[in-house]
């Protein structure tokens, strides 16, 4: 079996920063990522854009440009980058199952840093499975990786920094936006958290985005309380309700976004110990100050350990790498303390903006308004009503809901419905999300054919 000192899973800001630092200090580092190039979602295609589509940086903006330096340092480091590689298994003894070029293999790592980032919180609304309904992140990925933009005026619905960033990028690129449907009101609860967010630069950036969107003449409809995607076979219109009344906008493309959550699929599958984050309404691994999990030698960096954003993720990655260097005897305790202090201070300055953002854009209650007919599990086409019915028949938790309804048994393995199903059960049974728990995630966390598996020695 192949082996390495340190395996880093994910080449976004956290993974790149961790791998670069660890490799520069002499560790044998291997970095796995499913994508063809480093950057993760936030800096997707940063190398191609910097080299071949430099003019696109004008509309992609400053915060995206920041990824170029990270990617350059990562490429210049001795870390071995394995793009196009899927990690489908991580065992507690730090054996890793990978899939590359259609062949599965096992690798033994001395230590592992999981940097699998975030995913967008699923937004179940009536009609969200229609072609023409996608996520804001999906559309931003197309803009970064392929310079693709909506062909007709697009509707963005939801809230959060990513939504406003994409809107500002579209305005700068001259792409038409039919409307932004902003869900919820910007609550007063955010006010006590203004100062740390201001100090971290987050508020300044946010205001600049909102100014750019307003100057672009975009129609922003606020206080939206309900949404519905309408159409037969394709999206034709978005119907919405605000506190004042109702409206309908004809469009072939609706982009949804309600913030991001830690991508806990791999950490749950190992499984590491997790806790429910009430503020961000998602599960995240329980970590110490150095990012160490409850399993010896396995640490988590960046958004996979709790949402902090791209800048926080790079500092978190270095902090976790320093802990690995100390544990493997590559740096002494005193050197570690000095280097870690700098990273920790910078990390915490960026993290300090989160309470403000979390309070300003609170996650929607995934269970309150869901109509019985709305699909919650996209793969197996299970509705909110079927989950409620299962609960009324005595289904006690998400894992039972699977056997009652097949929700969570499709190819996405519960990534898209897990939180919604749990929230519905919590509401129907009067339990908390911690009490209800989550699907038991099992490897392989990505589908693997028998033929691919057959390559294992």
């Amino acid at each position, binding site marked *: 079996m192949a082996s390495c000192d340190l395996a880093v899973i994910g080449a976004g800001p956290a993974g790149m920063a961790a791998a670069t630092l660890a490799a520069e200090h002499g560790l044998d580092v291997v970095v796995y990522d*499913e*994508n*063809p190039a480093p950057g993760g*979602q936030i800096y997707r295609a940063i190398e*191609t854009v910097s080299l*071949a*589509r430099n003019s*696109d940086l004008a509309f992609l903006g400053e915060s995206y440009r920041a990824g170029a330096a990270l990617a350059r340092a990562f490429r210049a480091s001795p870390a071995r980058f394995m793009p196009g590689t899927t990690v489908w298994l991580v065992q507690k003894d730090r054996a890793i199952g990978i899939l590359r070029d259609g062949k599965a293999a096992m690798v033994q790592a001395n230590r592992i840093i999981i940097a699998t980032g975030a*995913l*967008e919180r699923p937004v179940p609304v009536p009609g969200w*499975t229609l*072609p*023409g*309904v*996608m*996520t804001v*992140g*999906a*559309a931003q*990925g*197309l803009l970064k*990786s*392929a*310079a*693709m*933009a*909506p*062909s*007709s005026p697009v509707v963005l619905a939801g809230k959060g920094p990513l939504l406003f960033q994409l809107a500002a990028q579209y305005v700068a*690129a001259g*792409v038409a936006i039919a409307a932004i449907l902003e869900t919820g009101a910007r609550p007063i609860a955010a006010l006590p958290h203004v100062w740390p967010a201001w100090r971290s630069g987050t508020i300044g950036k946010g205001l600049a985005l909102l100014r750019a969107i307003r100057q672009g003449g975009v129609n922003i409809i606020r206080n939206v309380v309900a949404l519905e995607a309408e159409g037969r*076979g*394709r999206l034709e219109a978005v119907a919405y309700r605000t506190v004042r009344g109702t409206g309908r906008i004809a469009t*072939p*493309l609706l982009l949804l976004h309600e913030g991001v959550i830690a*991508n806990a699929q791999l950490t749950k599958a190992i499984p590491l110990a997790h806790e429910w984050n009430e503020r961000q309404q998602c599960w995240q691994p329980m970590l110490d100050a150095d990012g160490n999990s409850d399993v010896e030698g396995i640490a988590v960096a960046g958004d996979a350990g709790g949402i902090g954003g791209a800048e926080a993720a790079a500092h978190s990655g270095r902090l976790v790498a320093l802990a690995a260097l100390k544990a493997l005897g590559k740096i002494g305790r005193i050197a570690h303390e000095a280097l870690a202090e700098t990273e920790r201070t910078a990390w915490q300055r960026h993290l300090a903006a989160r309470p403000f953002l979390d309070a300003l854009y609170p996650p929607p209650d995934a269970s309150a308004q869901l109509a019985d007919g709305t699909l919650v599990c*996209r*793969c*197996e*086409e299970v509705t909110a009503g079927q989950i409620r019915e299962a609960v009324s028949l005595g289904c006690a938790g998400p894992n039972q809901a699977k056997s009652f309804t097949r929700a969570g048994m*499709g*190819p*996405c393995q519960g*990534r*898209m419905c897990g939180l919604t199903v749990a929230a519905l059960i919590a509401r129907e049974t009067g339990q908390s999300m911690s009490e209800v728990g989550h699907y038991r995630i099992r490897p392989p966390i*990505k*589908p693997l*054919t028998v033929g691919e598996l057959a390559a294992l020695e």
Partner: protein
Amino acid sequence: MSLFRRLHEDGPGDAMTVTITVDGVALQARAGESVAAAVLASSDPTSRAAPVGGAPRAPYCMMGVCFDCLMEIDGETNRQSCMVIVREGMMVKRMARPKAVTP
């Protein structure tokens, strides 16, 4: 009309140099694009029929999470088309609803 368009006109370095076949129809794409991206820029953005109800689906998350972009690529079914980069001559098929199993 397509859901997405390419912002840059065809020029040197931006040419539609890759030809793939989707359900027997030739589709031009640029090097480096994913199969799902090329499909979203075509006149039919759908990737598959939903396995239970048969309703059309299109790529949703574009980051390998939702599995709604599953397509048959070069004879292999259930590939995440958002994670596969176009290659000259690639044969892509939209996936139909699986046939019902009769006992």
